[in-house]
């Protein structure tokens, strides 16, 4: 059962009806204690529906989404999210308490359910760049602001590369790309894909290179220095890299310190910018070397 169906059963009747009305178009459901349910659908349409949700009801609803297994989500909750069995991510806010050097989520005051919905073929525009007819795979960084479909597109890239005959190693730190259950993907990520699920990206990439000899490594939302080092190392080992990151423009990506490390290391052959609407590709840039400095030209 997908998250929208589960929410229809769990939400107050009025909000459930509104959710039913927008069905397949729903992209987000935002729940806040003491306020009505916010449903977001299509290209940014939204509505506040029903009576305000009580804090206790919000707690019960989230517990049900977590399959009554709060302890299993604890680490992710402390980081501000948890992932559902269908790959949908639920961001959470509320009262945090200090526990030594880290902070723990003590009480959840609001949540944002981002509905995961595989879109077969949404990465078609990128595939000629990633897997040209010469048979060699190229590396690509997908960038966009939040909500433009990076994860969905990355999942389709994995599926197409994998079903196209390449072994793909997937570093799925937040369980969103493959939505693994007991280590087995529940979403279609292709026939030749191996997934390291729930492990920090840099460690997952190292494990994949060491153990699975993939032709391509795929990772979502890279950002840390460790990610840059691990991906550069994987590229030196001969694997193509496909990754995504938050950025609003090419210039923004080039100026972000954590991404600059990846781009200056010569890991990426292409950068694709998604937007302005979910699933759309605004532009693709190809790296070219000139006087020892990498420059990016429209492909």
């Amino acid at each position: 059962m997908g998250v929208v169906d589960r929410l229809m059963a769990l939400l107050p009747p009025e909000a459930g009806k509104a959710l039913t009305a927008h069905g397949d178009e729903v992209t987000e459901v935002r729940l806040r204690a003491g306020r009505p349910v916010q449903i977001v659908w299509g290209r940014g349409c939204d509505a506040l529906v029903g009576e305000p949700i009580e804090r206790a009801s919000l707690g019960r609803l989230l517990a049900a989404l977590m399959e009554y297994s709060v302890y299993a989500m604890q680490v992710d909750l402390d980081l501000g999210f948890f992932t559902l069995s269908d790959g949908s991510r639920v961001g959470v806010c509320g009262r945090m308490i200090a526990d030594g050097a880290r902070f723990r989520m003590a009480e959840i005051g609001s949540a944002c359910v981002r509905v995961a919905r595989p879109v077969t073929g949404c990465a078609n525009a990128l595939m000629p760049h990633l897997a040209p007819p010469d048979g060699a795979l190229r590396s690509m960084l997908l960038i966009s602001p939040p909500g433009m479909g990076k994860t969905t597109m990355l999942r389709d890239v994995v599926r197409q590369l994998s079903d196209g005959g390449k072994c793909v190693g997937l570093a799925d730190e937040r369980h969103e790309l493959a939505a693994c259950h007991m280590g087995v993907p529940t979403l279609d990520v292709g026939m030749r894909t191996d997934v390291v699920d729930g492990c920090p990206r840099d460690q997952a990439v190292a494990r994949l290179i060491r153990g699975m000899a993939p032709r391509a490594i795929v990772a979502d939302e890279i950002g840390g220095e460790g990610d840059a080092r691990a991906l550069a190392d994987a590229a030196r080992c001969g694997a193509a890299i496909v990754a995504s990151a938050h950025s609003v423009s090419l210039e923004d990506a080039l100026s972000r310190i954590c991404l600059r490390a990846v781009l200056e290391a010569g890991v990426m052959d292409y950068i694709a910018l998604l937007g302005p609407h979910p699933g759309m590709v605004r532009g693709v840039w190809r790296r070219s070397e000139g006087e020892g400095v990498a420059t990016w030209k429209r492909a």
Partner: protein
Amino acid sequence: MLDLLAEGIQTLRIHMTGMLQPVPCALTNAGCEIMARVAEGMGEGCSAGDAWRAVRDVVARRGGAADALTEDDLDVLDALFSGLGQSGREEQEAMLDAVRFRICRLRDEALKKAGEADRLYVSLGLLIGLMLALIVI
């Protein structure tokens, strides 16, 4: 029965807080019939507490999986299932350890009572045998 439950809770603890399996999976893998019944109930989308309340009377009646348990034992299971999965890892570990401790204590009490009953029946048997012998003589 209490031995089986204590073992089941130990296994449940490993699957829940060690392997971070969701409650229904961990209950199914605990190797205990009562827990498996609760896991089945959770498949309907309810909490472990609600699933337990739905099956409690069925398993506790004569011939049920928890037929041998007393009302005290069932109270411990009430506490176990109502708190299962509702808090963080450390809290769950503490709760499962506390429940296991209570079950082991109830098991020891039950064994002690059974030993006393055994001695009583042996004494009664000897007494009746002696009386019969005296009557025959």
